[in-house]
């Protein structure tokens, strides 16, 4: 599981997913993100911190404002994890299926 867990954890919260969704159209400040969300600005800041620690957003200073943007590499971590998970599972499944087919062939006189 290693470093995918912070990403899953960060994405397990509906508000944080909404924050991410809002960043899809481009960088935003905390105030812009908080507008229209049913949570306080400090709460949004807290969510952004979790997202940043998970590698899902980055921030930079733009004059007096802090701007947040989506970090696609963070999402790739999860995608790669899911891909490799099923590759591992199906490698084992295919091996077991092949073995089982070979056993069945032995048991069936030709």
């Amino acid at each position, binding site marked *: 599981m290693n470093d995918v867990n912070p990403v899953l*954890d960060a994405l397990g919260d*509906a508000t944080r997913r*909404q924050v991410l*969704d809002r960043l899809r159209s481009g960088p935003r400040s905390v105030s812009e993100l908080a507008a229209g969300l049913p949570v306080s600005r400090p709460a949004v800041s807290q969510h952004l911190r979790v997202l940043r620690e998970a590698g899902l957003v980055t921030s930079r200073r733009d004059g007096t404002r802090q701007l947040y943007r989506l970090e*696609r590499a963070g999402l790739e971590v*999860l*995608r790669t994890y899911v891909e490799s998970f*099923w590759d*591992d599972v199906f490698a084992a499944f*295919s091996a077991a299926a092949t073995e089982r087919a070979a056993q069945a062939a032995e048991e069936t006189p030709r």
Partner: protein
Amino acid sequence: MTTTGTMTVEKAYDVPLSPADAFELFTRRCAEWWPLETHACHPGEVAEVVWEEHAGGRIYERTADGREGEWGIVEVWDAPHRIVYRWHPDWPAGSDSRVDLRFEARGEGTRVSLTHTGFESRGDDAERVHEGYDLGWDLVLGERFAAAAAG
């Protein structure tokens, strides 16, 4: 604003068994081959994997001393053709996803096709997801988010 294309991870594997045998191997005989040393809630300790064979049934592992770890919940059980299940093995609370697994005869064997779709959230969030209010998971495994790329 957001796309509805949630699917991203798709896999297909051919195995030399009939659909019925492949289906049984994947479910009832799961513990015989699943990489439980690594891909489990209790790695290396799992004694049994249970697929409750009906919609709403649980998919879970059990250790020799009785500890359980839930992998997911069955949504569709259509042996030996298809299983759809929610999938959240040992994931943090709130994280969830859906797997659609199909077993189709292909020559003398079976093609097993897996579609792992967009991570939705559990419980109370579900309705909001359907209303399109909470689409954040779409981008996780979703199609490219063109707008963000310009950011």
